[in-house]
């Protein structure tokens, strides 16, 4: 398939997942800010912004509302929900022939309804907007799963989604590492990953910070855990490699990076994970960054746009 289309699919996967996860993270954070009496709004909001890689505005103290405006609705803020949905739609528009009509319509309708949903959410509260985005993201991945052939296009889409998922779960955990061990905030962490019910069933209701972190990083069965997403990305890359000639290790850099990160998580002693959690998380984030670069080098052959005009000589 065309490298350009492959790249679009990869980024559709990433942007939709980013919009979804950002909505999830915001949904619980904003409502925790609103509901929990013991939270200092400004500090929490700034920590969250730092973790999402969004530059915090100077001046006024932030609260739940300004946080929603910035990370939720702002179209100019890279990484905001609206911006992510727009980018996903732009990519789908440029790759219509490899994206099924159902997927395109879903994305386009989502994008078209954003202003309306924002107006409504400013009126009745941000949850309406977040749950809309979450619902549409779930619908999109359902449509992708049911309309795409399991060929390379599917693998690029899935690769993008999994890579982004790792990145976002890591960011989610980074935003919480300084919480108290028994803070009810850990339940909101689980909720934002859609993992609350599963976790509570797995650990029979014992809410414990270290277990929550382990669950979200290392659980082998839960589809939103970092480990699961890494393994999925790895599988995609293995399947994409249609000339497996190398007899030693992995020849491709992306696969090597992913495999190493995955096995590090897999064979790490649980107690060591917590010894230096921030470093572990930062390491994972670094890996994801490198994977992104390696994938684009290997498959997307990004050629810079060359301007064939003579430079103005002054």
């Amino acid at each position: 398939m065309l490298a350009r289309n492959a790249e679009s699919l990869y980024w559709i996967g990433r942007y939709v997942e980013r919009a979804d996860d950002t909505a999830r993270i915001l949904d619980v954070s904003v409502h925790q800010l609103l509901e929990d009496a013991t939270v200092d709004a400004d500090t929490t909001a700034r920590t969250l912004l730092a973790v999402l890689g969004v530059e915090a505005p100077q001046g006024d103290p932030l609260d739940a509302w300004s946080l929603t405006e910035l990370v939720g609705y702002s179209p100019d803020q890279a990484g905001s929900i609206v911006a992510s949905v727009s980018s996903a739609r732009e990519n789908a528009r440029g790759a219509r022939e490899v994206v099924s009509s159902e997927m395109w319509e879903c994305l386009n309708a989502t994008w078209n309804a954003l202003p309306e949903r924002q107006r409504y959410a400013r009126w009745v509260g941000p949850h309406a907007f977040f749950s809309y985005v979450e619902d549409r993201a779930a619908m999109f991945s359902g449509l992708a799963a049911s309309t795409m052939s399991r060929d390379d296009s599917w693998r690029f889409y899935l690769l993008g989604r999994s890579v982004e998922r790792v990145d976002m779960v890591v960011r989610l955990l980074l935003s919480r590492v300084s919480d108290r061990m028994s803070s009810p905030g850990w339940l909101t962490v689980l909720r934002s990953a859609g993992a609350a019910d599963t976790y509570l069933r797995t650990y029979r209701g014992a809410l414990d910070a270290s277990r929550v972190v382990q669950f979200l990083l290392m659980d082998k069965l839960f589809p939103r855990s970092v480990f699961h997403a890494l393994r999925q990305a790895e599988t995609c890359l293995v399947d994409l490699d249609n000339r497996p000639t190398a007899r030693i290790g992995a020849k491709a850099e992306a696969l090597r990076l992913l495999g190493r990160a995955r096995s590090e998580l897999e064979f790490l002693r649980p107690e060591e994970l917590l010894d230096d959690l921030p470093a572990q998380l930062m390491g994972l984030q670094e890996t994801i960054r490198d994977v992104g670069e390696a994938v684009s080098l290997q498959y997307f052959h990004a050629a810079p746009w060359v301007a064939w005009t003579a430079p103005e000589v002054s």
Partner: protein
Amino acid sequence: MTDAHPGKIRPVTRAPERRRPEPAPTGDGSALFDGYLEPDRPYAGAFDEMFHADGRVRSHYRALHDAIAPTAAADLAVRSEALDRAYVDQGITFSLSGQERPFPLDIVPRVISAAEWSRLQKGIVQRVQALEAFLADIYGDAEIVRDEVLPRRLITSCEHYHRAAHGLNPPNGVRIHVAGIDLVRDEGGTFRVLEDNLRNPSGVSYVMENRRTMARVFPDLFSRQRVRAVGDYSTHLLRALRSAAAANEADPTVVVLTPGVFNSAYFEHSLLARQMGVELVEGRDLFCRDNVVYMRTTEGEQQVDVIYRRIDDEFLDPLQFNPRSVLGVAGVLNAARAGNVVIANAVGNGVGDDKLVYTYVPEMISYYLGEKPLLPNVDTFRCWLDDECAHVLDRLDELVLKPVEGSGGYGILFGPNASRTQLAAARKEIRADPRGWIAQPVVQLSTVPTKVDDRLVPRHVDLRPFAVNDGDGVFVLPGGLTRVALPKGSLVVNSSQGGGSKDTWVLAAQRSPEAERELGQRGLAVASPAGSPAAEHGPELTIGQQQQQQQQQGGDA
């Protein structure tokens, strides 16, 4: 509505010019509170929680009032609809005569100040401790009877006193794992205990869900003040249940025992089980062998250590109680006696929340704890004492008559509203069974603004805080279930009688968050790392590329 008194609450102040609009005491230009404090309303005698008698807003309601008053009636209606829809979507309903209905949640929260709550909390803890001591005593040596503080026939005549529970001592001594203490606020604003619920107090799921739904539908209300969270109830409950297990069980298996999906509180049972991450079982999922309770799983039998049962004593064990029960587990009581399983709340707790025993709780508090009761009872006449019975028969038309065994608001007779034949019938019933009835003066429950049609009007409320006892201490969930009587003038708040509920806010004390934070434990890491890199982005067309693509005319029609 066209009222004779169009919404002026405060008498006209000394405003010199009549042209300028009066500073309306209920918020500027707010039509919502029109006619709220009309003198001829049926609520005139009641204590209003939002307004002083002269129309000023009480200080702890100030922020809420200011947030709500400017809201348009239409806006309020939309949000109110959103509340209902959220409840139906989530399946938070109760069954009324076989029909599933959303539990009506009112849009205006009820607020309790930090100081008020700390008094209430102490009173509730004291009461639970006294009742805990009473149950241990009654099912043990019954010293309180021997010391003639309580008459023996009070206990033995109680329908919920179970000899089967005698000598059944729970491992950590707790019988009241969960208590719901019903409080009302009288005309003077004093909180009084209306009744104790020590068997299966329900409603805590509404406390949690009310808060979650309110925060989603009306988040602006929360931003002006700090409200204490109620979401961690299940954590406390699970801790209490786990610590109730026999001491030699390192990792006890807890289950929630429900009557089944047709029970009116099934939603609550499933919510608690889900939040605690434990199995929700029915009687048919459990069985006893050799005094050990097991549940049937796909991996074979699994021993159960603690049963948080939400079915009544009478149905719990067909071997001991109602032999026709299909909800219970045969032999579970013997298993508990053998120390192999803990039943929570304990069997026989009903003797502690009997409405007649209730009148003796102040005596229990001074007998067991040597303290003065912090929360007063509602004055109660006991029909089984001859002189008080004579008084009741005489003054029945001024009193509220309640059956001792009643719950859910059934069987209550309001003397002032009753017809002559009803009164005569009631007198006959009292004479036939004096132990079965108590009477109380009509308490004008306090009122809180409530949305009815497109106005906010006073409606009567009560409060059911929930207390969880884990053996080391009694935890009281900050807040509780506020039930509101929606029909005009009604004093019955039960959901089966047309009651709704309100989100209940306990305001956080000013300095407590900091103190709490300082005392808190260490996090997983000392501080958050400096920051993450910005999210990566895919390639985008440059402006130049976009412009050139647009300029190509070929494809355009």
